Structure formats: structure tokens, C-alpha cells
């Protein structure tokens, strides 16, 4: 049986649309050993988990574990069930995600879990950096969980929270909200990837015509925690003019930063129709014939 989660105890802004989707480092610290909770680390840095992780946390790598390695797509439901089983996760398990880079990849992993219908998900606010900054313990000891029985999800719910190229193109042509969450230099076409960062191999710079540039970073504080509900409302609703019932598509370069914004819009602001275009700029910027806008 899960402990009662009170937002007050979590130090989480109760004005978020779904404050229960966010837990504090203090809350996680108190619930590391709870049955029914699985702590999941997902990082950009592929060896970071091995350098030390939260006690009892399992590692799910966005590429190794969540991607199909023969076609550009996510794993199939059978593989998702196997991944969960291996980590002792059942459909009733509450998965608490955390990681590096202000929780980019934890939001990405959470979003993939949602693709397979696993809805009991939370993010640890501030991620790995905040945990470490507070002097909380890390371990290199690998946890061992008895394999669980996780039924193969009947479908992958792409249509609900995932956008494809054609969806993004239709969004652009219909002048519906498209949010480009990359850095300003990537948005205006000056660069095709972040400075000093792995080049994912994109041939053209710029953005999808009509997209609004709202870098993901606007949604976080210096300590990697999410900004308050009021601050987020100002960014996305007051300044950008988005409405909770708008059909919104967010994208970045490969879908990780836009997962972060998807989490903000979906869980913290309560927008109901937000999709993440995971093909993002590496697909759009390479696609023959795809229209591109620059703002140099």
C-alpha cells in the first residue's frame, strides 16, 4: 500500500494542475524502500548511473532500453513489458523518474512509459543534481528485484501524446500551436545543434514554419526544479497565448527537451491535448521537401 502523498509534505506547488505528478527529493528520500514504488534514473550521460545512483534506483537508458535499434521508433509493447518485468515493475507500480540535465531524459522516459499506458508516473523535482546538492546519498550497488509479470500492453498510444512528421506539417499549415523548445540559435537557424554537443546529423537549420521559440529552460529554476504554476502560466498562457484546450505539438532536436515541455504543459499546467514530436528537428531538417523558416 502506498503512503498518502500530500503536496504539503512534498514542498510542491499545489497550484500545479497535477501536483501529484511531482515529488520532492525529501519525499523520495523517505520512500526509497516502499513497495509499490520504483525509482528510475534516466540520463544523458550513459555512465552516470554507474558512478552512483539513488539507493534502489534502476537504470533505464533512453537509447539502449527504449529505442528500437533497427528502425527509428520506440520499442514494441512486448519489449516494454519485458523491460518492466526485468525491473520488477507491475502495472500498479508507481514509477518515480529522475536524472541529469534538469530531468530531460527522465521526462522522456516517463513520456515513453505513458505511450505504453503506464500512468502511475512521477518526476523527482530538481532531478539528480538537486539530490546531490542536498548531500543525499548515492550508491554504486546495483539493486536486484524479482522479475515481475507485466502484461504486454495491447497498443502503444501514439495517437494520444505523440506527433509524427505529417502531424507537425498539418499543425504548421493550420497555424495551430507549434512550440520549438530548442535554444534560440537552433531556432533561428544559426546552428544545427547545441554548441559542443553531439551533432545528430541534420542538414538544414531553422524551424518549422509558424513555430514559436520557447526554450525548455524557461520552465526551470537554477536548481533544475520546475518554476511555480504562476510563472509557468505567465510563460505559456499570458505571454504565448496558449489555452488549456489548444492542440499543441512540441518539438526539439530528438524529442528529449520537448518531453520536458510536454510534461510541463500536460501535468503542471493541465493542458489536455499536447503531443511530443519526437522525430523533431533531426527528421524535419533532413527531410527532402520539408519547408523551413529561418529568422536570422
Amino acid at each position, binding site marked *: 500500500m502506498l503512503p498518502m502523498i500530500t503536496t504539503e509534505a512534498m514542498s510542491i506547488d499545489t497550484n500545479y494542475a497535477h501536483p501529484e505528478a511531482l515529488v520532492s527529493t525529501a519525499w523520495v528520500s523517505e520512500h526509497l524502500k516502499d513497495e509499490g514504488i520504483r525509482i528510475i534514473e534516466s540520463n544523458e*550521460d*550513459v*555512465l552516470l548511473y554507474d558512478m552512483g545512483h539513488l539507493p534502489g534506483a534502476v537504470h533505464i537508458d533512453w*537509447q*539502449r532500453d527504449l529505442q528500437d535499434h533497427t528502425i527509428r521508433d520506440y520499442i514494441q509493447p512486448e519489449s516494454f513489458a519485458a523491460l518492466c518485468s526485468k525491473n520488477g515493475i507491475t502495472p500498479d507500480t508507481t514509477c518515480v523518474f529522475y536524472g541529469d540535465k534538469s530531468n530531460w531524459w527522465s521526462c522522456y522516459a516517463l513520456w515513453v512509459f505513458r505511450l505504453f499506458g503506464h500512468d502511475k508516473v512521477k518526476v523527482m523535482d530538481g532531478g539528480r543534481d538537486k539530490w546531490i546538492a542536498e548531500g543525499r546519498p548515492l550508491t554504486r550497488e546495483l539493486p536486484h528485484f524479482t522479475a515481475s509479470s507485466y502484461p504486454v500492453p495491447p497498443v502503444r498510444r501514439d495517437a494520444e501524446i505523440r506527433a509524427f512528421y505529417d502531424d507537425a506539417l498539418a499543425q504548421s499549415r493550420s497555424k495551430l500551436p507549434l512550440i520549438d523548445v530548442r535554444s534560440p540559435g537552433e531556432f533561428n537557424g544559426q546552428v544545427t545543434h547545441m*554548441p559542443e554537443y553531439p551533432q545528430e546529423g541534420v542538414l538544414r537549420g531553422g524551424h518549422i514554419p509558424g513555430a514559436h521559440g520557447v526554450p525548455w529552460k524557461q520552465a526551470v529554476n537554477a536548481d533544475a526544479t520546475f518554476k511555480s504554476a504562476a510563472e509557468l502560466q505567465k510563460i505559456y498562457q499570458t505571454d504565448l497565448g496558449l489555452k488549456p484546450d489548444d492542440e499543441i505539438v512540441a518539438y526539439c532536436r530528438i524529442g528529449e527537451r520537448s518531453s520536458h515541455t510536454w510534461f510541463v504543459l500536460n501535468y503542471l499546467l493541465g493542458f489536455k491535448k499536447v503531443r511530443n514530436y519526437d522525430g523533431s528537428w533531426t527528421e524535419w531538417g533532413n527531410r527532402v521537401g520539408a519547408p523551413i523558416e529561418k529568422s536570422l
Partner: protein
Amino acid sequence: MGQQGGRPHREVALISESKSSRMSYPHKLSAIIELFAGLSDAEKRETLISYADQARLQEPKEGEHFDLEDVRKDEECTDTVAVFLRLDEKGGGHFRVTLGPQVQTLTRAMSSILCKGLDGITPADVLSIPADFVPKIVGAELVRLRSQTVYYLLTRMKGVAKVWLQRQRQSSLEKDDAVSE
């Protein structure tokens, strides 16, 4: 990139001679490659972690002076990675590296490996080292998962070596011109 002091002509000649020898890997790097060659992927990861743990040992020591330094910071993603190069009296290069706290573990590991493995070889030889040793060290899985990250620091070090060589050649040409005038 900042540069301190100049290099005499003699070292340019040494670089030239050294390049003609066409060695594949310097012996210190070869020893590290051999160490990794016998390890499984899991053991490779453990060994990389050990090298990453030692990355701070490769930072500049107090009082050290460098011939070239390349410091770059990226607030959006990685972090500051500073590469320092010092040339000894025989033309051998010695790299030092400082890494910001957000720099990836693989880059930390590679900084340890490359500072040790490339120690004492000339900038020309640094440039001529084929990058194909990297997969032998980090293993096929990590190369597949993070294909660019694993080459990052080698690329930065080669960039520093290249700039140093270009400056030496330019300096050499200017001196030749002065003599002929």
C-alpha cells in the same frame, strides 16, 4: 586559444621527422588499448569509471605554464572543458584538462586516458593518431549509444595540436622572410 611564448625552429623539424615515422599509436596509448582489449563490455565500463574517477588528476598543477590553452563553455548543455598543452624542450606535448561538473562521465574517462596515453608525443603525432582506437577502449555498445561523445575530447586535443602547429609554421615563415630581407 591563448598562447604563451614561442617555439624555436628546431622543434618544427622534430615534428616533421616524427610525422614521417608514421607510428599508429604511441606506446603509452597502446598499453591502455591492450588493457581494454581483454575486457568484456561490462569490465570496460567499470574500467572507464575508474579512469573517470581519476580525471581530476589531469588538471593543471600549480605553477605549470602552458604553450596553448583552449577553454570553452557551453551553458546550455555540456559544461566547461579546458584543454591545456605544454611543450617540453624536446618538442613532446603534455596535455592537461579541466572539466566542469556537468561534463559527461565518458568525457571524464577519456580525459584521463588521453592525457596519459598521449603524454610526451609531438603535436604532429597527436594529429596523425587514427581515431579507431576509441571503440576498442569504450566498447561497441557505448560507441553505438553515444557515438559522438566518445570522440569529443580527442577532437578537442587534435584541435589544440593543429592550432599550435599552424602558429609554429606561421612563426617559422615570418622568421624566414625576415632573414631573406
